[in-house]
């Protein structure tokens, strides 16, 4: 199941060798769909910038980015891979800083660039070690080499460090919540849907090359998956900005994928190929699914932001009435990401759960404990994601429009600036549905989410082939029907569920008759002057959960105290801060900065001293050599 395409390349050690195998095929499908959809969407999204900004640059880097992605997943040579990797990193940087006149955008771009390059250091080291041990830069030859388990473990750790930054594992995810919100929305969709998956691809490729990995690697992946998933979704719950929230959800989903890969590695180390194929296959399917629904959600968020000029959820509300199609499409994305039945997220989570439960029965005791932790964290992630997306959907699309939305037709509004309340008709005029060309790619993505959710067999064949490829076994020897038969039952129940819904709607029609129902106001305990500010905001909705976890989430609130008999107007702000940024990276970087400053002070300012140092070093070398 491999197609090789080779050509000479006048680069030292490099060979223009491309390979198409089941692993790269899964990623290639995701790339093709999302690059195409985001591109079409981008045409509409970028229209307001026409004539104001050089769009040619943007398109140029978009195409370079697409080409680099294809080369990354098909490269069969280390040099080619690293070249494409670098091309992807740089083109992404230029795509992110499209609005580079804002300092926040430039800052986010630099954080991304620095994080990526720090990670690339580990990649160089890792590939150098692998090439040194196998004597070749060719992936296929590397895969035929037998590495010692200790060496494989070391390479695995380097791969986690190098690819993990791109993938966004906690605690090295800090570039994600910066870069995603500032990039144009179709770029955020690509960043989240594809770019971070390249980190997963890299890890998969290393797992494939390292045929024999010690079992602790699997446990490490499982733990990273559980922590990234749980912390990702908890941080997401604390966010107020739509795209930042979605960025944290990417961390969560990367965690789910890592759980799948961890099960796969465990299955491989304990020689249970069925378990390995389930884990790898589930992980790969989640890669594909996540790129579909997260792409959809980011594009939907883009439409909201384009229409309202605000990504602050607590300024929005009631958009389901003004953006009806977008709201339905966003709903499909939300249902998919929560892993609910009928949608694609459920299929991949089902397979990963199935693998984890198989791990309960097949693995030794510490494997059972790890599987239990995996199951529990996946369950908690599901419940928290549901809380998070009901919060997003409820505050952005449902309820009444909040204050901030009133002046929405004027760009750059501030809260409280709007003076007069508008009637719904006026609002309808200033907020029109997204243009057709922007809806079309979203419809395609939503359609694919439902398609995979209802006809999973159309993709399970491919992902299990990928899983078997990563396990180095033949798929026909695996009793894969053991998971496909339950899936078929799930789909049957899904169709039964759909027909029950239709039946219940019919009963409801029958009971209610055709006459229109009376429309009144929402019950508010008899209080007449109801303002849209009474509604639960995203912050108040998530408060209970955030409060429970306030130690880990670094929850902070300022102001809001009411004092005296006639309290004055007060202001309350609450926010959640990233622990790994504030407790690990900020002090760490400050320490490094300090250190280099101190070294700078002790720097010698006389050239004679430098010459002496050189002399001393030469003497040292001579002594060392002569010894």
């Amino acid at each position, binding site marked *: 199941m491999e197609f090789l395409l080779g050509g000479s390349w006048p680069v030292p050690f490099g060979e223009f060798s491309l390979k198409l195998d089941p692993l790269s095929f899964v990623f290639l499908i995701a790339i093709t769909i999302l690059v195409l959809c985001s591109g079409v969407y981008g045409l509409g999204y970028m229209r307001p910038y026409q004539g104001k900004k050089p769009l040619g640059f943007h398109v140029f880097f978009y195409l370079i980015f697409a080409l680099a992605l294809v080369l990354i997943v098909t490269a069969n040579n280390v040099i080619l891979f690293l070249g494409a990797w670098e091309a992807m990193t740089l083109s992404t940087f230029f795509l992110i800083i499209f609005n580079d006149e804002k300092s926040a955008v430039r800052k986010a771009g630099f954080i991304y660039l620095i994080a990526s390059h720090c990670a690339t250091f580990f990649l160089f080291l890792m590939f150098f070690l692998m090439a040194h041990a196998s004597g070749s830069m060719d992936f296929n030859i590397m895969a035929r080499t037998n590495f010692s388990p200790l060496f494989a473990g070391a390479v695995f750790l380097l791969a986690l460090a190098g690819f993990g930054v791109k993938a966004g594992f906690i605690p090295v995810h800090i570039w994600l919540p910066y870069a995603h919100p500032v990039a144009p929305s179709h770029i955020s969709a690509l960043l989240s849907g594809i770019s971070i998956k390249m980190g997963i691809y890299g890890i998969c490729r290393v797992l494939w090359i390292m045929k024999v990995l010690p079992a602790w690697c699997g446990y490490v992946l499982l733990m990273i998956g559980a922590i990234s998933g749980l912390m990702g979704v908890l941080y997401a719950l604390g966010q107020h900005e739509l795209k930042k929230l979605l960025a944290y959800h990417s961390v969560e989903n990367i965690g789910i994928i890592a759980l799948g890969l961890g099960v796969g590695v465990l299955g491989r180390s304990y020689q249970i190929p069925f378990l390995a194929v389930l884990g790898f296959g589930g992980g790969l399917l989640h890669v594909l699914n996540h790129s579909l629904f997260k792409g959809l959600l980011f594009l939907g968020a883009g439409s909201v932001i384009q229409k309202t000029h605000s990504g602050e959820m607590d300024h929005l509300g009631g958009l389901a009435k003004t953006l009806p199609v977008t709201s339905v499409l966003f709903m499909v994305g939300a249902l998919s990401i929560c892993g609910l039945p009928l949608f694609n997220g459920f299929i991949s989570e089902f397979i990963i759960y199935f693998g984890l439960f198989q791990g309960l029965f097949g693995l030794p005791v510490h494997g059972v404990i790890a599987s239990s932790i995996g199951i529990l964290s996946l*369950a908690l992630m599901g419940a928290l994601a549901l809380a998070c997306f009901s919060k997003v959907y409820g505050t952005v699309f*449902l309820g009444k429009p909040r204050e901030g939305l009133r002046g929405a037709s004027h760009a750059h509004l501030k809260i409280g600036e709007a003076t007069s309340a508008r009637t719904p008709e006026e609002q309808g005029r200033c907020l029109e549905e997204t243009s057709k060309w922007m809806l079309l790619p979203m419809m395609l993505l939503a359609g694919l989410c439902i398609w995979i959710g209802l006809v999973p067999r159309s993709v399970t064949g491919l992902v299990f082939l990928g899983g078997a490829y990563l396990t180095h076994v033949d798929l026909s020897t695996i009793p894969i029907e053991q998971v496909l038969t339950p899936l078929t039952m799930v789909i049957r*129940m899904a169709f039964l569920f759909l027909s029950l819904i239709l039946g219940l709607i019919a009963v409801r029609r029958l009971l209610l008759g055709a006459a229109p129902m*009376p429309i009144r*106001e929402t019950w508010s305990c008899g209080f007449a002057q109801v303002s849209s500010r009474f509604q639960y905001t995203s912050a108040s909705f998530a408060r209970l959960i955030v409060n429970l976890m306030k130690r880990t989430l670094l929850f902070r609130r300022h102001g809001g105290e009411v004092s005296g008999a006639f309290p004055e107007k007060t202001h309350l702000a609450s926010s959640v801060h990233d622990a790994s940024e504030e407790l690990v990276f900020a002090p760490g970087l400050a320490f490094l900065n300090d250190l280099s400053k101190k070294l700078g002070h002790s720097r010698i300012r006389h050239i004679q001293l430098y010459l002496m140092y050189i002399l001393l070093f030469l003497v040292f070398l001579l002594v060392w050599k002569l010894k």
Partner: protein
Amino acid sequence: MSSVLSMAFPILSHWLIVCFLSPLFLGVIAKVKAFFSGKVGPSVFQPYFDLAKLFRKKCVYSSTVTWIFRAAPVVILAVMLVLALLVPFGRFKAPVQFSGDILLAVYLLALGRFFMILAALDTGSSFEGMGASREAYFSCLSELAMFMNFITLALLAKSISLSQMVGAHIPMTWGGLEPALLLVVASFFIVLLAENCRIPVDDPETHLELTMIHEVMILDHSGVDLAYMLYAAAMKLFIFSGLLVSIIIPVRTGDHWTDMAIFFGAMLGLAVLIGIVESTMARLRLNRVRLLLLISFALAFFGLIVTLWRA
């Protein structure tokens, strides 16, 4: 034709049981509570009359709501009807059994919850927002405890099908008052109370909005929509109780009528037990509910430890 009938018969009988008996379950609980407060109380068939009345009424909608508000009751009732097919009711084996059906069950419940929360937020009322927020919060904890129980049961039964995990399929019996099973039952009972918004987690009787979870979320539903919601809530309680009874009593006599009598007797007993709990306990303060759910999780966790230690 006969194969279709043999497929359809268990499904229909399951639906009949759930549809006809679930309001009775609520009626029994109400009767027990009335007895404890020294009242005669409404007849045990009162929930049927309430539902019948609501089914005849038209709905009133808020000007704020969208299609989600109307879709939620339908979705939730459909979820319960599908869920009913996955749970064994004593002698009536679950018509649909497959490996991994617990995942479908839990995630279907989540789907219903998602629509319930959205319908509440759809009204734009702060009361309903409050209820929605609490529901999202408590369900995180109760789902965790539920999965912990499932892990223990899966390990005991070496299967991940709901029908295999409960009842006679578990090789361990109550012979020596099996500690793992005892912990699971205790933990699952708390989950049952929490998931179905009973005292001590939520009070289904009170209509003081600030203290409620489930009742406040359906505050703006009326007529047929409200009937769907209440019917679904009754079914949910019945299904959860059926599951708990199946864990407690593995039916093995083999005689059709005896088994049925045992099952429905046990269901009656559970309804009385819930009624006693509700009459003798006060609703917990809201910030204490999480402790109750964490106790449930801890019990399930000890259940797993005992199981692992035995194995």
